[in-house]
């Protein structure tokens, strides 16, 4: 059964989450960390069966990470961005590997580049950076210029 965008927003509003209407086929949802699993299970149950990607954004001034779960439905043709904010000091979030298996690699990568710990994910081994011992490199407080000068001897002229 194909739902249009308005009825999906209606359904989500009934669940008590904040919905933002972005584009003709895209909506954005702000959720709490505790509510994440329930919310994603609900989305999956109404036909959003494809997890496209998981992003992480570092809001260093606000001291928070934002995780964006991109969920797509082949029946409704709607793209939902589920945004979760977690604290930068204690970056822990429950894993969704049991819901979507492909989340394994996204979580591994985010753990590698942002240092966010996904509770319940058994394998958070690095994919790209072998044996990295510095600050995770995509965090905003990681200084790539300084690092490349120190390790590779890069010339910086300005």
């Amino acid at each position, binding site marked *: 059964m194909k739902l249009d965008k308005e009825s999906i927003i209606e359904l989500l509003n009934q669940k008590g989450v904040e919905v933002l209407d972005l584009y003709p086929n895209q909506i954005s949802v702000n959720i709490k960390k505790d509510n994440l699993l329930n919310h994603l299970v609900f989305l999956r149950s109404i036909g959003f069966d494809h997890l496209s990607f998981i992003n992480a954004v570092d809001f260093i001034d606000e001291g928070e990470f934002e995780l964006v779960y991109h969920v797509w439905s082949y029946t409704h043709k709607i793209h939902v961005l589920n945004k979760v904010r977690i604290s930068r000091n204690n970056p822990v979030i429950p894993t969704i590997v049991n819901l979507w298996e492909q989340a394994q690699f996204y979580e591994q990568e985010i753990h590698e580049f942002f240092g966010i710990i996904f509770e319940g994910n058994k*394998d958070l081994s690095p994919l790209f*950076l072998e*044996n990295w*011992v510095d600050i*995770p490199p995509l965090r905003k407080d990681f200084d*790539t210029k300084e690092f490349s000068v120190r390790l*590779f*001897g890069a010339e*910086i002229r300005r």
Partner: protein
Amino acid sequence: MEDLKANDKRSYIDNLIDFFRKRSIWMLHYCTGCGAVELPPSMTSRWDIERFGIVPMATPRQADVLLVTGYVSLKTLKRIIKIYEQMPEPKWVLAFGSCTVNGGIYWDSYNTITNLAEYIPVDITVSGCMPRPEAVIDALQTLMEMIQSGEGGAYKKYKENYEYYKKNQDRVLRKTAPILGSSETESIYQEKEGNYET
């Protein structure tokens, strides 16, 4: 001056062997980055470097020249060193593009080395981002001249200056685990404290 003297001493047999070597360069193109795109036109009908006897080879054991075609990340560097050491002598290295000289577009990357010559000896460095097939052919022709005249002996440098190269390799690869049989599955973030000294 020493080089010139050495040239004078080269016998007829040496010149013949060098002629064979220069006319039959087998290359291992380890395709890192953009250079992989420039090599197919050089190898296929339009520019056809097989005219000079240059053919791609599948394994380092059979190859004479290693083409490093583009940026080199830490993971790649480890494999490049392994491949370079697996090649039997005489061997030559061609570095293509800005990235292998001074970092190129990845000049401030956390994971890309800036100067390939610090880690393995390089015979010819070609500028460009990436070099056109004509530039590739030009470099290979220069390599052929260097082989004939006995100039292209950078592989001897690897033995003479091994400490220098090894030190540089260790400095950047220290933070990385062995290629095969890595059992490091614990979280990288947890073991951060105290392990890294500047």
